């Protein structure tokens, strides 16, 4: 049974169609969402989180229609890590992570335990008492990921969590996501770095022009014709660009 399912979903932003007839079933494991800029990755993730209405079709969470679920019921099932998520106040790291589970209605002791476990799992226990404003970009992103993980929901949606990070931090974040997925969660992660996606994801979904044009094992998707058409580049099975095979123009231009 899929944990998250798109059924012929259409999304338009200000009358501009962004997702066309998207059908996708997400099962436990780390699924990478790839595609060029403007292909609809963030829109798909936001629609899955219930942040954007669908013009047609439906999203199902554990086979329940997303629109029929209350905000609280959605929060119990889905965690969302936005791209460049803002933190408006100079919060302590442990306070910020705790925000991810306060809606569960647990006691302070239980929340403290959940926060401590998550900080350990994300290797940021040493920052617990620091202000989030004093952290580096990579440390901050791990803290925000910890906030998304602390509620232990079956679905995690991460929108480009490795953007603007150095390679070491990118591997740290993707490694964390892979660990979480290995524990039985369904993780959908938008990612631009194709070698990173090839290395860590169990499955890749390719979006191009708002449509899913390929879906499968990373090496099949990356080396496939659809990826070549989407990026206008020939890509190896490990996600590297084959410079000899650069086409003159993008196939869909």
């Amino acid at each position, binding site marked *: 049974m899929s944990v998250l399912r798109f059924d012929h979903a259409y999304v338009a932003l200000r009358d501009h169609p962004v997702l066309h007839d998207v059908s996708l079933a997400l099962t436990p494991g780390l699924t990478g969402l790839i595609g060029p800029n403007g292909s609809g990755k963030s829109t798909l993730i*936001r629609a899955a*989180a*219930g*942040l954007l209405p669908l013009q047609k079709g439906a999203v199902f969470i554990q086979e329940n229609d997303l629109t029929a679920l*209350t*905000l*609280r019921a*959605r*929060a*119990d099932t*889905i*965690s*969302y890590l*936005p791209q460049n*998520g*803002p*933190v*408006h*106040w*100079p*919060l*302590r790291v442990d*306070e*910020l992570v705790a*925000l*991810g589970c*306060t*809606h569960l209605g647990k006691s302070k002791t239980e929340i403290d335990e959940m926060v401590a476990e998550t900080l350990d799992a994300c290797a940021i226990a040493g920052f617990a008492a620091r*202000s989030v*404003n*004093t952290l580096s970009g990579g440390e901050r992103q791990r803290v925000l990921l910890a*906030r998304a993980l602390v509620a232990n929901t079956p679905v995690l949606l991460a929108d480009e969590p490795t953007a603007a990070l150095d390679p070491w931090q990118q591997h740290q974040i993707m490694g964390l996501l892979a660990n979480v997925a290995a524990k039985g969660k369904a993780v959908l992660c938008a990612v631009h770095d194709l070698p990173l996606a090839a290395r860590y994801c169990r499955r890749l979904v390719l979006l191009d022009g708002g449509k899913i044009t390929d879906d499968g094992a990373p090496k099949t998707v990356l080396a496939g014709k659809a990826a070549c058409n989407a990026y206008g580049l020939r890509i190896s099975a490990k996600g590297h660009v084959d410079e000899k095979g650069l086409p003159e123009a993008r196939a869909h231009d």
Partner: protein
Amino acid sequence: MRRATGFLIIAALTLFIASMLTGALWLSPAQFWAALWHTGDPVHSMIIWHIRLPRTLLAFFIGAGLGASGAALQGYLRNPLADPGIVGISASASLGAVAALYFGLAAHYFWALPLAAMGGAGLAALVLIRLARDDTPVTHVILGGVALSSLAVSLTALLMNLSPNPWALSEIAYWLMGSVADRGFSDLGFAVPLILVGITLLWRSGPALDALGLGEDTARTLGVSPGKAGRLVVLGTLCCVGAGVAVSGAIGFVGLAAPHLVRPFFGAMPGRLILPSALAGGCLLLLADIVVRLLSGPGTMLYLGVVTALLGAPFFLYLIWTQRRVWV
């Protein structure tokens, strides 16, 4: 945090007693105690029970309402510069009260002025509640508030401009400067229940305000409705600020400064600042009212709004200067 809460409670009690002793006729603690139980000079009892007690309680509760509103608005708007003035509720309440003065209703009916002030604040709140929906970015609520504030200020200026005589104009001008002098238990009975309801609404919005600190999208995925949070904050501010303006006139700076005063001791989480800001706001306004009485004399009546601005602005500048590191 417990120590800071204890300090605020002790400060409030100390200022309460200081406020009961201070005035044109100074009372010793023994005289105050005797007056409180009607065992001393009957004049002292009259001063304590009919003048200073309602004035002191009003100053505290109005300050508490302003402090709580300021903390909640800063959290909701995610802006440390926000205060009840920014969303136009203060200015709209003032407009309602000024209209009651201008049309002479306040002179004929006791309840006309407070009800008109609450009506003005309520109209502004209605517009803001319509704006504060889940699909409206918070910047639109700020812009709507700024527009409402500008409209209310200009209409107030228009009424002052059209004042039929200098006495009417001076009555409006003095009222706008804010004061809790010569207020009685009827004012207290009107304002305090509303302020307590307002503080409760604001306090209930606390968890949502905490989540909104991570952005509206993340807050929604944590089960928070930004629209509902906005409506709670607007209604709470309406009760606190509308009731405060209705009985005391316009009083600035308390709503802005109180959250900044307590943030270094209670952390930056907006929801956690609401009750401490209420206590700090109450203390600030009590202190300002004591200063008003110390500096006022025969022929020189100082107004509370003037003193809060005069003391508040440099104090706020000092806080910002010394708290620069809080923001990193």
